[in-house]
């Protein structure tokens, strides 16, 4: 069973982020894939689950750590036509956060809707 995409039918790519920023590199390097991937004109979505929602938290000041603050990069996604950012409602609530605490506009979705979105994807990139 082979799916033909030579004609240019865009595949649904989902980037799954479940890890907090800075403790590990996965958030930063995942974002780098999103930016490069944007040029390929696929149907891109980003999902933030669990601690992944912390990647989007406002007010990140990394001067004391002497590491690069990569949260501003989320603001650039719009310029790359990457606009489908889904954030797990339960994850926000468990962490005392709301969409207003995040650096970019996102769609907050419940478990059922997130499951729907995830199971509809063709390619899932987890980091």
């Amino acid at each position, binding site marked *: 069973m082979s799916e033909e995409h030579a004609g240019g039918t865009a595949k649904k790519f989902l980037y799954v982020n479940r890890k907090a920023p800075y403790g590990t590199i996965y958030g930063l390097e995942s974002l780098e894939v999103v930016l490069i991937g944007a040029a*390929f004109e696929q149907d891109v979505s980003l999902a933030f689950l669990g601690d992944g929602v912390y990647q989007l938290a406002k007010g990140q000041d990394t001067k004391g750590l002497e590491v690069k603050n990569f949260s501003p990069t989320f603001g650039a996604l719009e310029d790359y036509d990457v606009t489908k950012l889904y954030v797990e409602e339960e994850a926000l609530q468990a962490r005392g956060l709301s969409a207003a605490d995040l650096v970019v506009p996102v769609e907050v979705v419940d478990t059922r809707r997130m499951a729907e979105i995830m199971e509809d994807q063709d390619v899932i990139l987890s980091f």
Partner: protein
Amino acid sequence: MKFSILVNEGPYTHQASDTAYQFVKAALAKGHEIYRVFFYHDGVNNGTRLTVPPQDDRNIVKRWSELAAQHKLDLVLCIAAAQRRGLMDKSEAKRNGKDADNIAPGFRISGLGQLIEAGIQADRLVVFGA
């Protein structure tokens, strides 16, 4: 089917590279095609020529090189991740003024676009990580 594989972790510390290798071997045995194996994050460390693992255990890097040679696999180390972690081929070393290169046979260094392309061209992309 055509498979693309993403390996996110380096040799030995996590099981990801082992599991990916066994999966690729099984897929080939069943007559499937491996479009590309892409190594990202610490996964680029699977491509170093300089490992000398203990003799009584598997040689992860050599295994990948041998499998690649046997089946003409495309093993790609992400250039951004490789640069961060010090994996160089001859031309990268020259370009960046480094005094050595350390890439193992069968691996090549290339951009993240190769990962996206691998996802587009294959029927299935499978991620191995930690």
